[in-house]
C-alpha cells in the first residue's frame, strides 16, 4: 500500500470568479520517496502541500494517508493524523521568538499526548541530528538563518513523522546555507523519511528523485 495517494484531487476557492487551485491531481507517494514540485507562484503548489499536510481540504477527489480516506474522518482525527504523520518546514521558519531552540523543538508532540520528558528527549535528539546540540538554549534571535531553519527541521522531525512537507525551505537562506539544508534533507531521506519539497528554485527541485512541475493547478512530470 502506498503512503500517500491523491486521486483526482480538486481544490476550488469560492469567489468571483472561483479560483481553481488544484484541477485534478493524481499522485502516489511511496515510503522513502523524495518528491520535488516546482512551479511559479500562484501555480497551486502551496495548496497542494497544504492539502497533503491536511491543513486544507480538497473540494472533490479522494486523499488517502496509509490507506485512510482523510476526507471521511473527523477534523479531530485529521489533526491527530497531521501530528503523527507530517512535519512541516516553512520558508519563514515560524519559530516562537520567546522560546529557546530546545523549547521550540519541544512543541512537536505537544498535541499527540507526549509527556514533557519524552518531548525533551526527542527535542535534544533532533537537535543532535540537525547538528545544533550546542544551540539548544539559544533564542531564535541569536541564531543565523541557516540555524533557524535547522531548528525548524529539528522541530519537524522530533515527532518522528513519516513525511516532511517543505514549503520553499531555502527561500530565506543564502546559497551556502541553502545547500547545507539540502544536504541535510538528503541525509534525512537516507534514514527513510519521505520528503515532499515545493520550490521555485530549480537547483532545489533538481535534488529530488521524483521531480514534478506544477502549472495552473495541474501536475506533470519534470523529466
Amino acid at each position, binding site marked *: 500500500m502506498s503512503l500517500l495517494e491523491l486521486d483526482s484531487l480538486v481544490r476550488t476557492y469560492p469567489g468571483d470568479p472561483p479560483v481553481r487551485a488544484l484541477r485534478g491531481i493524481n499522485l502516489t507517494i511511496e515510503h522513502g520517496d523524495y518528491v520535488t514540485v516546482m512551479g511559479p507562484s500562484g501555480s497551486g503548489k502551496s495548496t497542494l502541500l497544504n492539502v497533503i499536510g491536511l491543513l486544507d481540504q480538497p473540494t472533490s477527489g479522494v486523499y488517502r494517508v496509509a490507506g485512510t480516506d482523510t476526507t471521511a474522518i473527523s*477534523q479531530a482525527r485529521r489533526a491527530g493524523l497531521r501530528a503523527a504523520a507530517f512535519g512541516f518546514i516553512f520558508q519563514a521558519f515560524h519559530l516562537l521568538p520567546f522560546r529557546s531552540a530546545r523549547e521550540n523543538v519541544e512543541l512537536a508532540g505537544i498535541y499527540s499526548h507526549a509527556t514533557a520528558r519524552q518531548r525533551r528527549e526527542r527535542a535534544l535528539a533532533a537537535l543532535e541530528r540537525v547538528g545544533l546540540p550546542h544551540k539548544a538554549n539559544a533564542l531564535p534571535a541569536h541564531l543565523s538563518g541557516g540555524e533557524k531553519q535547522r531548528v525548524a527541521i529539528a522541530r519537524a522531525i522530533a515527532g518522528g513523522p*513519516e513525511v516532511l512537507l517543505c514549503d520553499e525551505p531555502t527561500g530565506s537562506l543564502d546559497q551556502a546555507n541553502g545547500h547545507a539544508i539540502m544536504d541535510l534533507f538528503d541525509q534525512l531521506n537516507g534514514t527513510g523519511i519521505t520528503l515532499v519539497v515545493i520550490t521555485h528554485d530549480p537547483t532545489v527541485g533538481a535534488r529530488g528523485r521524483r521531480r514534478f512541475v506544477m502549472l495552473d493547478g495541474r501536475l506533470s512530470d519534470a523529466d
Partner: protein
Amino acid sequence: MPTETETETETQIETEIENPAQTQAQPAPQAQPETPAPPTVAQPCPARMRLAALWFEILAGLLQRPGRAIFTMLGTVLGIGSFVAVTGISATASGQISADFTLLDATTVNVTQYPPPNTATLPFPADTSKRLAQIDGEVAAGRWWSVNNGQTVDAQPALASGEPVKVQAFAADSGALKAAEASLAGGNIYSEFAEAHAARVALVSTAVATQLGITADAVPCPIRIQGQQYMVTGVLKKVPALPQLMLGVVLPAATAQAAFGLPSVNAPASVIIRTRAGAAGVVAQQAPVTIRPDQPKLLTATSTPVPTQERAMVLSRVSGLVAILALVVLIIGAVSIANTTMVSIMERTAEIGLRRALGARTRHIIGQFLGETGVLGAVGGVVGTSLALLVILGVALAQRWTPVVDPRIVFSAPVIAAVVGVLAGLYPSIRASRIEPIEALTA
C-alpha cells in the same frame, strides 16, 4: 469511521486529560481489516494534549510579554480590589458600630403617656408588671417616677436628731428595678407583699446611705422621710438603666402614691421594660395595648434610639455605590483583557498556524487563549484581593478598629476574577481558533 466517537470528541470544549477509557476505545473501531496501517503513521485518533503541557503553554504565552500581562490585569486588580476593600471596610465599620451600641441599650423599652398629661395622673395600672410579663421576649418591667414633683425630700436617721439630708425620692415597682438591672450592696429589694400593701419600706443608694450613716450590712434599719418612718430594706449599689435612682431613696409605687400622691405633670410616670436581645422592637409594639387594652393610644413605647444605626445605613448606601463602581471597573477590566487578547492573537497569527500544523485542534487553541485570560483574571483577582486586605488593615489601624472581613468574599474574589477573565477571553479565543492555518502560515 465511528461517527459517535467523533461527535463526542468534537462537542466537548474541555481539554482532554488522560482518559484511559477513550484510549482503550480507540483500537476497536480501528481494527477494520482493510486498513492495516504501518506502525509509524498511527491510525488516526484525535489529537490530544496533556493538561500539564497546556498549562506550560498558557504560562509561557503570558510570561513572554510580562509587562503587557501586568497592564492587562490592572483592570481586574482594581475592580476586584475595590470590591473587596469596600465590602471589608463597611464590614469593619459596622462591626465597630455594633461594639459601641451596648446590649443594655438594645434591650430597653420605655413606655410613656404621649402627649404628656396635663394633670397629675398615673396612666399605668398597678398590675403593669404582671401584664407585661405575658409578652414573649419580656424579661422584667415596672413603673417608676420621681415623687414630690421632682423636688428633694428631707431624710434623716430614725433615732438621731439633727439636720436632715436633702435627697431625691422615687417611686419604682420592684419590676422596674429588675428591668433597670439594679444591684444591691446589701439587703433586698422590697417584697411584693410590701408593695401590694403600701408598706413603708424604702431602698437607699450607697451615697445616701453614707450620708445617713447606714452601712450595707446594717439593713433593715429605720429612717425618716419627711418626718414619716420607713424601713430601709436594701442599699442600691448600681442601677445601670436608671442611674438617676442613685440620687436618693426609692419607694414602692403604692407607698409613694399614698405618701406623695399621683405623679405630677413635671415628673410623669413611665414604664421601663427589659427585653431579650433582639426583641425590643416587638415588645415595644405590643406594650401599650398590653398595659392599657382600653386605651392603647394613650401610651407610646420606644426602644432606645440608636443614633449609630443611622450611620450604618448611610455607610451601607455609600458602599453600595462604591460596589457598583467596582463592578464597572471590573467590566472595564474584562474589556481590557478581551482587547489585549485580540491584539495578542493578531500578533501571534503565525504561532496559531504553526500550532495547527503541529496537530492542534480548534479546542486546543481556544483552551490555550482562554487559559491565558483566565489566569490573567485569577492573578489579577489575587493581587487585587491582597491589596484590598492591606487597605482594610490600614483603615482599621488608622481608626483603631478591629478589621472584619468575610472570608467567603476573600476566597471567592479570585474565582470571580478568573471567571471574568475566561468570559473576556471567549470571543477572542473563538476568533483565534477560526484563523485558517494556511493563511496564518503564509503571513
